[in-house]
């Protein structure tokens, strides 16, 4: 067994490194040339729409799937590659499945002991007890999976994955089977536990909010490739592409034209440096919260087309001259009933501008 202590001795070595990993299913490329490096103790969220290859990447790392090309290193050791393949059981990875995959013929405790078969029985029991206490499922140990609720099953699955002290924990949409209310609580508990243990974690999710909030780093994938990788703030506030900008939040899309280092549009002029030819068409992505609203003062006059009250905030649709589609705006201020005309100002550095392309 490689212990956590031993691993901690060489911090410089990344916990995971992939080099040009590719995988095809028939004519569909699930992964094409993925390069990813993850430091020890990092919590990384792989995020993307379904079919983007994020789950395939996770399975390749676990050894459940074999890559067609490329190499995978776990803790510096090549586990998948042209010359080597380490079977999943010898990779020392923990995996939490979307459906939890608890063995229905074993109790919660036996499920946890399942991964500890290679060590002496007494020691295995000790380790199982320790992780059971840590995850707080002592009262569930004797129960069978069908007697557990969704949240309880998730915790048993987590304990089972952690019990053999894996070098890295892979989680495939681990919270997607839970109700909304329960999901936030279980997610917070799980992540703070993993952080406290200093475990390296890769978590796959399709939920942008979850990705932004859960990980140290977010990796956005699309059609088998990594689009952008960075902190949640990077991806949300400084997306490198229109796709990334759209993925993490609904935006108003405003057409513009680039001239002499300035983008001209119906909502104003924005000086930018863009790799677009003079007179080229660009699209401005304006998040609803980037627009501030007032009754009297502002850069542009606008007419209120529709109001939708959500409680804390109010969503408004505004019509602006020269703008073909109405602008969606959110405000926490209370406008008087029957307000028709308002003024808006757009926060310049929150406007994202990308060259207009046929695809988003």
């Amino acid at each position, binding site marked *: 067994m490689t212990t956590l202590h031993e691993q901690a001795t060489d911090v410089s070595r990344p916990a995971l490194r992939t080099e040009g990993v590719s995988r095809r299913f028939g004519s569909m490329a699930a992964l094409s040339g993925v390069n990813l490096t993850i430091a020890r103790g990092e919590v990384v969220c792989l995020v993307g729409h379904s079919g983007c290859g994020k789950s395939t990447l996770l399975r390749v790392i676990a050894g459940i799937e074999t890559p067609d090309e490329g190499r995978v290193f776990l803790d510096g050791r090549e586990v998948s590659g042209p010359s080597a*393949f380490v079977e*999943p*059981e010898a990779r020392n990875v923990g995996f939490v499945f979307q*459906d939890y*995959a608890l*063995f229905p013929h074993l109790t919660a405790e036996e499920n946890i002991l399942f991964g500890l078969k290679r060590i002496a029985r007494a020691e295995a029991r000790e380790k199982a007890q320790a992780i059971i206490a840590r995850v707080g499922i002592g009262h569930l140990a004797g129960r069978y999976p069908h007697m557990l609720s969704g949240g309880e099953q998730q915790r048993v699955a987590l304990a089972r994955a952690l019990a053999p002290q894996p070098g890295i924990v892979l989680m495939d949409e681990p919270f997607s089977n839970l109700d909304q209310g329960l999901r936030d609580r279980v997610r917070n508990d799980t992540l703070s536990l993993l952080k406290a243990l200093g475990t390296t974690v890769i978590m796959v999710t399709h939920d942008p909010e979850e990705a932004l909030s859960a990980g140290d780093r977010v990796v956005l994938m699309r059609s088998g490739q990594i689009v952008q990788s960075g902190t949640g703030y990077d991806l949300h506030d400084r997306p490198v592409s229109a796709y990334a900008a759209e993925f993490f939040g609904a935006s108003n899309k405003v057409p513009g034209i680039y001239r002499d280092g300035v983008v001209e549009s119906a909502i104003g002029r924005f000086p930018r440096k863009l790799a677009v030819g003079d007179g080229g068409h660009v699209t401005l992505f304006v998040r609803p919260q980037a627009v501030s609203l007032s009754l009297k003062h502002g850069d542009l006059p606008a007419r209120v087309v529709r109001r939708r009250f959500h409680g804390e905030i109010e969503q408004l649709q505004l019509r602006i001259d020269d703008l073909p589609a109405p602008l969606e705006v959110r405000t926490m201020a209370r406008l008087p009933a029957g307000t028709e005309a308002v003024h808006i100002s757009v926060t310049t550095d929150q406007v994202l501008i990308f060259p207009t392309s046929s695809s988003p």
Partner: protein
Amino acid sequence: MPESAAVGRPRRCDGRCWLFAAGIIALAVALPVLGLLAQAVQGSAGLWPHLLATVLPVALVDTIVLLCGVGLVTAVIGTGSAWLVTAYAFPGQRILEWALLLPLAVPSYIIAYAYLDILHPIGTFQGVVRWLLGYSSPREFRLPDVRSMTGCILLMGFVLYPYVYIPTRAMFLTQSANLIDAARLLGVSRRAVFWRVALPLARPAVAVGISLALMEALNDVGAVEFLGVRTLTVSIYTTWITRTDLPGASQIALSLLLIVVALVAMERWARRRQRYTADVQRSRSLQPRPVPFWTGSAMLLAGCLPVLFGFVAPAAYLAAEAWKRFRFAGLSPNFVHEAGTTILLATVATVLTILCGLVVAYTLRVRPNRVSAWSFRLATMGYAAPGTVIAIGVLIVLASVDRFIDRNAQDWFGVSTGLLFMGSGAALVYAYAVRFLAITAGGIDAGLSRIPPSLDHAARTLGQSQLGTFRQVLLPLSQPAIFAAGLLVFVDCVKELPATLLLRPLNVETFATHLYGEAARGTYEEASIAALAIVAIGVLPVVLLSRFQRLKL
């Protein structure tokens, strides 16, 4: 550090070993058919005209008439009884639901054997009929002879209709009640619903059932012979047993195989449709409609008829005869010996079949590719082939293997091994395995497919090898499926007659061959106990099946 052993080691052969084993099994199943083809082709070409002039025309006509008749009778009884217990609620309907399965326990040769005696011109039944009608001797009045094509069709129909009843009833149950309601609102009367909606939707299931029933009818060698119908199956048997003409037997077997291929094609075609229709979204399943008491009683009576003819009458007759025999002579040592042989052969074959089924089905799970898919397909094709055909194929293959081993042993060691396989019962076990592998492989595959693949992956990431995953996770979870499939195979081995007749070693008797021998000689004494034992064992899977059917509700 146990995992260090695997570090840097090239990919283990785990998956490839499974593929290899599955391929070997598939080949072993295909071998008898290949042997048959080879023998039929290389056998004297001059034999074909002879066959065409003598045996084939009669046998072919008889076979086709029999198949058409049995198909019609099973379709009518099967769909009629299925609709009766699904659409109407009447007293005893719940019991009838599973009682209608009981004739499955009676092999065709046993029902023929029983009715030959029940309906004997000087037997009790005909005597009572004559007494009621006021006749005094069989010369004045007798019922039509059961030893005829009509008799054979009816008797086979009464034990084979469950093959139609089971899938058709399942189909009726999955049909949406909304469809029926929609039809009623569109102006179809309650009576016409069966013809206009339910039956057309269930047609694929009926076709599957009929093709399975006809495969059984083709397999039969006992009933047709007792009742004097000369089918292809009987011709194969007599060509080999009485004339020891292996090429001739294989050529007839080949023509029989053509009919089987047609039946399989029909079954496959129907199943494709079945999948399509089963996809119809259903919200509410069909609820049985309560009927007035007298109508209900009439329905119960009608529904009981097939059970009465197909199970109660022959079983009661056998029980009475067996009791008489037991009171008279007790259990002979022969009977105990036969019981031992029957159970031993069936057990060995069952274990072998389960093991092969596990390998083939598991390979399909861990390595889903073209090789494993074809292995599975090949390995499960034996279910359609009549026992006689498989037996002839096995005979061809193993006889030459025996000759080969014997010759080599004599050359090298100067000893004769004799008939190593043919003489030991290994040939018979081989034939059983070929014929029944579809049951275990199919059953285990169905069981495994209910286990989500993430469980395999979880076990792998938790340190288990592929074999360990199989042992620790899949095996315990598919135990019920394995048990059910094993039981079916065991019972089928006990009931199996044609292959057993052809391949049993000299002087070895099972229940089935003993019964056949006595019936062929026209003596009925001790065979009744053996027949009753077969029927009793045959009831086991019916119990299982009825529980399963209840579950599906």
